[in-house]
């Protein structure tokens, strides 16, 4: 019996389990060769994995560097400092279109190289630290691709406007109009692309991203609305500039030193006719000149009668509604009582809007002012020109002087744009105008062209009262004091919403006003008979403020601080009890009102508490959605606002579109602090 046979015999007597183990442990020469081969295969796998993976990691790192450079270059482009280019002075791509194309190519390159990873990335959100960034990568890349592609197309189409190649043949409004007309298909496509970007952005949760990426998304949040407005403006411009037929506009010049509901006291009006980008004529008047007292005028809104003692409602008080289209129609009605001229649209601009435009066009030399007008002296010049007449200065002379400066200023600005376009930075001018619209220093509405009116409404440039769902707040001040005190008034408000009983939400609005004018022992004089005060003196008068608060329809007032005003403080001599009023609903909003008088150097605080209708909160099975829209009144600079939300017990915020702070007193009390420069939208999702 040889050894082999013995082995077989032994194995035959072993249990089946042991037999298997024995077979596994027994390695013949061919098995050993196989094992070695497997090992080599494994090593090869590992080596390939290491080489390939390492190379890929290096590539990813290099791409990250390239894309970072692109972002830096884009920042430089947006800030208009070509020499600050990350590629060094002079090495910047020749035009915005080239830069955007280059960025788009880089993004495409990155997308092509990491396509597989980008398919997997959305499922990696569970990874610690950078999981959210990785999951958001495809959405971010899609947005960047959309933005760079459409941006490059528009920049290419408008290149002669953005980068005039030949300074000897400057861009005129007419050539700008032709370019804009030709660029319409690109602009329409860009508007759609921006909408897609907005939708993609809305699905991203910025708070879950790493600080670096969140900062980038924050920048996108800043520039995206501006881009959308810019594209919309470019889409609107051909029509507005009389591309197809002559357009006649009323330009209402508002003085926010005397704040009125739609922006400011109507101090002047210009009728401007535009055809094919050329201003055919402009006729400017003092607002007082528009009223023809031989014609019948209606009775004014009640506060103008009760507080100011006005018996007729005339052109310069026509902007009583904070809903600009309503005010504009009223202004046109009064205007057409005097002039039977067709009006296609109404544009309103306040002094701040003028200051911003002058900042781009400065210096403007005008015959009625000794020094060139610049952004730093335009407000002083306008105020000085409106100094009320002195004894030796008959009213007619004052009105002429006042009219002449405004008219000269408008003429100089238009001349500069039309006659010396080579000296005008149209991009900055466009940004200044867009900024003025965004911050409610300008409004525009069309009376007959529904399509353009709808575009203006969509961009909120028409100043119409917001009609969306949810909670709503607009604080509308009207200076009824025959004075120009508003530059001295610092207003702020605090808005607290109690959501602890979601079926009966309650709101408390605290309005705070500080009169920063020099404190005086003089009593408040509502109306000064001639000789009139100087403009500077008018700025230091008491503040007669009629405040209307626009809230969702169905709101029920609960209580309010009474602000009694004695009869001697009013030109009518009739005192007011100071009870808050409930006015007739306007544009689908309930309106509460109060009135107070604030002497210089003093402060006032008034509180309104009301029950909101339950539909301001959307309730699903296990979440609450609270949305708030705060609309900024035209003519105001930034207004500090604090919003407090008291959440139902044992609930927390699962999503908020704006960062918030938790109050020290309770976990369910959250606070938003902001400066209201434009309309503000809040959306908070709450869940147990």
């Amino acid at each position, binding site marked *: 019996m040889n050894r082999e046979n013995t082995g077989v015999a032994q194995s035959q007597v072993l249990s089946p389990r042991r037999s298997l183990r024995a077979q596994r442990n027994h390695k013949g020469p061919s098995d050993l060769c196989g094992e070695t081969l497997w090992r080599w295969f494994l090593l090869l796998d590992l080596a*390939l994995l290491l080489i390939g993976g390492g190379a890929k990691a290096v*590539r990813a*790192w290099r791409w990250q560097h390239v894309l970072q450079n692109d972002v830096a270059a884009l920042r430089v482009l947006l800030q208009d400092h070509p020499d600050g280019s990350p590629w060094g002075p002079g090495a910047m791509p020749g035009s915005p279109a080239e830069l955007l194309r280059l960025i788009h190519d880089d993004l495409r390159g990155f997308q092509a190289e990491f396509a597989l990873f980008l398919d997997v990335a959305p499922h990696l959100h569970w990874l610690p630290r950078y999981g959210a960034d990785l999951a958001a990568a495809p959405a971010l890349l899609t947005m960047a691709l959309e933005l760079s592609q459409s941006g490059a197309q528009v920049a290419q189409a408008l290149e002669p406007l953005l980068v005039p190649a030949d300074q000897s043949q400057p861009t005129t409004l007419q050539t700008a109009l032709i370019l804009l007309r030709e660029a319409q298909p690109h602009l329409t496509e860009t508007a759609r692309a921006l909408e897609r970007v907005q939708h993609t952005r809305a699905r991203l949760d910025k708070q879950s991203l790493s600080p670096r990426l969140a900062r980038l998304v924050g920048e996108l949040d800043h520039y995206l609305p501006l881009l959308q407005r810019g594209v919309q403006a470019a889409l609107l411009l051909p029509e507005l500039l009389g591309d197809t037929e002559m357009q006649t506009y009323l330009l209402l010049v508002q003085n926010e030193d005397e704040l009125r509901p739609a922006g400011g006291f109507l101090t002047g009006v210009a009728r401007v006719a535009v055809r094919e980008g050329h201003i055919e004529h402009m006729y400017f008047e003092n607002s007082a000149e528009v009223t023809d007292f031989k014609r019948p005028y209606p009775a004014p809104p009640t506060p103008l009668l009760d507080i100011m003692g006005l018996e007729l409602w005339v052109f310069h008080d026509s902007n009583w509604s904070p809903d600009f289209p309503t005010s504009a129609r009223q202004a046109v009605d009064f205007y057409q009582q005097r002039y039977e001229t067709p009006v296609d649209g109404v544009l309103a601009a306040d002094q701040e809007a003028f200051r911003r435009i002058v900042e781009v066009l400065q210096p403007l030399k005008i015959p009625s002012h000794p020094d060139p007008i610049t952004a730093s002296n335009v407000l002083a010049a306008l105020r000085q020109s409106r100094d009320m007449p002195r004894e030796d200065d008959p009213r007619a002379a004052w009105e002429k002087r006042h009219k002449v400066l405004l008219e000269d200023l408008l003429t100089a600005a238009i001349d500069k744009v039309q006659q010396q376009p080579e000296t005008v930075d149209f991009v900055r001018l466009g940004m200044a105008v867009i900024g003025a619209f965004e911050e409610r220093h300008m409004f525009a509405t069309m009376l007959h062209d529904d399509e353009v009116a709808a575009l203006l409404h969509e961009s909120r440039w028409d100043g119409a009262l917001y009609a969306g769902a949810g909670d709503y707040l607009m604080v509308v001040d009207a200076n009824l004091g025959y004075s120009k005190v508003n530059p001295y008034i610092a207003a702020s408000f605090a808005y607290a919403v109690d959501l602890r009983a979601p079926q009966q939400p309650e709101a408390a609005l605290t309005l705070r006003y500080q009169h920063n004018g020099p404190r005086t022992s003089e009593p408040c004089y509502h109306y000064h008979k001639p000789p009139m005060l100087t403009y500077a003196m008018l700025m230091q008068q008491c503040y007669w403020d009629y405040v209307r608060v626009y809230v969702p329809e169905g709101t029920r007032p609960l209580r309010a601080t009474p602000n009694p005003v004695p009869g001697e403080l009013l030109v009518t001599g009739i005192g007011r009890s100071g009870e808050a009023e409930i006015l007739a609903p306007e544009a689908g909003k309930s309106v509460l009102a109060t009135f107070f008088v604030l002497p210089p150097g003093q402060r006032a605080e008034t509180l309104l508490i009301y029950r909101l209708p339950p539909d301001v909160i959307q309730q699903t099975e296990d979440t609450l959605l609270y949305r708030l829209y705060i609309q900024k009144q035209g003519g105001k600079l930034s207004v500090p606002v604090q919003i407090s939300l008291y959440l139902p017990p044992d609930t927390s915020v699962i999503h908020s579109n704006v960062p918030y702070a938790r109050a020290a007193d309770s976990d369910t009390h959250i606070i938003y602090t902001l400066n209201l420069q434009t309309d503000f939208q809040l959306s908070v999702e709450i869940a147990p």
Partner: protein
Amino acid sequence: MKRDRLRLAVHCVILAGIVLFVVWPLHPVAMSWGYTVAGTRVLRRLQRAPDLPQEMRYAQAMQAGRLFQTALAWDPLNHRAYANLAAVYMVWDDTTSAARALARAAMLSPRAQDADP
């Protein structure tokens, strides 16, 4: 035996996966490198023959330029292709494009990338 076959099959699948998903995606870099080498040869030839007639110079520069552009189409991060492209632009005295290509090459070069912006 059956198990060995299974192991072999699994291994082949893994290997194919690695090659397909990890190694193959790097082939554009190799292609780009190949085109850059070819373009560089043409460029060197051109630079070593200063007495070449202008037309010939332009034709060779054009050929080199196309090769570098193809290299960049394969790999947009190829800084050498950009640097050589700058030299090609210089043959045509297009200093603006040369400066841009050089700036891009400098930005893409691994040395520059060591220092993040």
